[in-house]
């Protein structure tokens, strides 16, 4: 898959091409990591890890809706002790690995980052935006001071490893992003799922075991594009675009809006893992057809038009 046209650098990380998995899909154990590597991701992004093991919410944890899914996994993960296995699995394939972590305070965050880096993580993605993880998600992101402290505490322990901040929809997003960059983040990952829910009209109950969840998939793609656009055109920071990427077109839209790389979440299970190869191949063809010598020429191009 190597092709210099596709090589990118985002948030201090060099990647052979711009397509990764989004956190939360498969990369929760070594088997999942192996599948993602085989599918051709440029880097493996792990499931978000918390200090303690979390069983997650009761089923159903995901519901199909119009053009997407609402999930409420509730950050199910094996806890901090599960990090080394996943990191090593990716490293065994020679893939860069980005460990996603979720924490409610700076101490936890630092500890999670430390363990990740020791295990060999190439970058930390701190999830400040899970819409269904009381105390470790969106609420943290809403708190300007706490969220900045969390990022600072991670930056302090990871040395020169890049720290990425994963955000959802926040008031005055570009301003908030600049605060995180000030705190030492080298990139932002936009966007997480959008807080959402489904109620059954016969029983008048919330359907998800976790009651409230997050909307992902094609439904949120235009929202992700503008989040990336707003932030990139105003700040120029490095961005990883996520949200409803199903085809190369979706990827190009995010890149033209300002993303240097993209992550694929819902499409990985909705269309299947083959979607990664399909997007990468089509991106290469697109760049050739359009006469771009490197994909970075497309980054943020829509800002100027």
């Amino acid at each position, binding site marked *: 898959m190597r092709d210099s046209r596709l090589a990118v650098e985002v948030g201090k990380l060099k990647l052979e091409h711009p397509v990764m998995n989004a956190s939360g899909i*498969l990369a929760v154990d070594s*088997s999942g990591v*192996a599948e993602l590597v085989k599918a051709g991701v440029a880097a493996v992004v792990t499931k978000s890890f918390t200090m303690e093991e979390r069983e997650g919410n009761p*089923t*159903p944890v995901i*519901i*199909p809706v119009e053009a997407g899914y609402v999930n409420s996994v509730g950050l199910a993960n094996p806890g901090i002790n599960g990090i080394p296995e996943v990191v090593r699995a990716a490293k065994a394939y020679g893939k860069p690995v980005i460990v996603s972590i979720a924490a409610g305070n700076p101490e936890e965050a630092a500890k999670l980052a430390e363990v990740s880096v020791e295990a060999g993580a190439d970058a930390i993605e701190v999830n400040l935006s899970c819409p269904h993880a009381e105390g470790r998600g969106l609420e943290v992101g809403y708190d300007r001071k706490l969220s900045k402290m969390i990022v600072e505490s991670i930056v302090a322990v990871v040395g020169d490893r890049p720290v990425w901040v994963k955000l959802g929809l926040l008031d005055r997003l570009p301003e908030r992003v600049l605060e995180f960059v000030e705190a030492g983040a080298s990139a932002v990952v936009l966007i997480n799922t959008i807080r959402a829910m489904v109620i059954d009209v*016969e029983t008048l109950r919330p*359907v998800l075991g976790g009651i409230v969840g997050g909307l992902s998939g094609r439904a949120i793609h235009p929202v992700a594009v503008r989040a990336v656009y707003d932030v990139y055109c105003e700040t120029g920071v490095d961005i990883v675009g996520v949200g409803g990427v199903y085809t190369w077109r979706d990827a190009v839209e995010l890149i033209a809006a300002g993303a240097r790389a993209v992550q694929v979440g819902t499409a990985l*299970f909705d269309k299947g893992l083959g979607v990664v190869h399909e997007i990468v191949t089509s991106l290469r063809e697109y760049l050739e057809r359009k006469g771009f010598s490197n994909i970075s020429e497309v980054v943020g191009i829509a800002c100027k038009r």
Partner: protein
Amino acid sequence: MGTQFVSVRVMRVKRYGGLAWLRVSPLGFTADPGQFVMLWVPGLEAVPMSIAWMDSLGAEFIVRSVGETTKHIHELKRGDAIGVMGPLGRGISSVMNVHVHKVLLVGGGSGVAPILYTAGVLGARGYDVNIVLGFRSREEAGIREVFEHHGVDVTVVCEDGVGGPCDYEGLVTEPEFVKKLVTSADVVISAGPLPMMKAVYRLAGDKLIAIMESIVKCGVGFCGSCRLWPGGPLLCRDGPVFTASEIRRLLE
């Protein structure tokens, strides 16, 4: 198209010992035999259930009471609303090839659920289908009634003896006629407890197509909970229908 979540009403429930037969209003989608759904009992959890029957007027499930949610399913009444998310997984059509004419279906316990729908669909498609079911007790074997209701002829083997719905005594793989049917079949499709599947595999070898179970949480292939073994396939995405060669390490 794609996976849907729908609210349906219970139309009939009938119990046969530990097994309950449940008919619900139409799901609004079609499914391949072997595919499953997540059946949501409001206030409780959603559990994976094979589609046991489906026609334009409704869908059916055969449910063993094993824990909180399935126990509650046994208590459902006509008119109750439940949720169904599906269709999920890979059905039998993907593993049937054109050289198959003679099919033997072997079901055990709650594994008779996908066998019923498979029998209905393959029968309608003109295959030569034989069906053998195994049950722990004569009480459970009463579910034979549901097969007959749908015009599906079966031979029933019960662990607790002959009589009533039970034609033979023993384990489902023991009677001589079963061994003969295995020999003459092009494929043997089986669903039930793992020990039974292993016994069928010993008779059928690579003719076996197994409809498996494991711990399903998301049902769509992202959580990893249903993986059959480290590095192995995801049941909800790659199965629940598997060829013997795909899951040999579980059968041997």
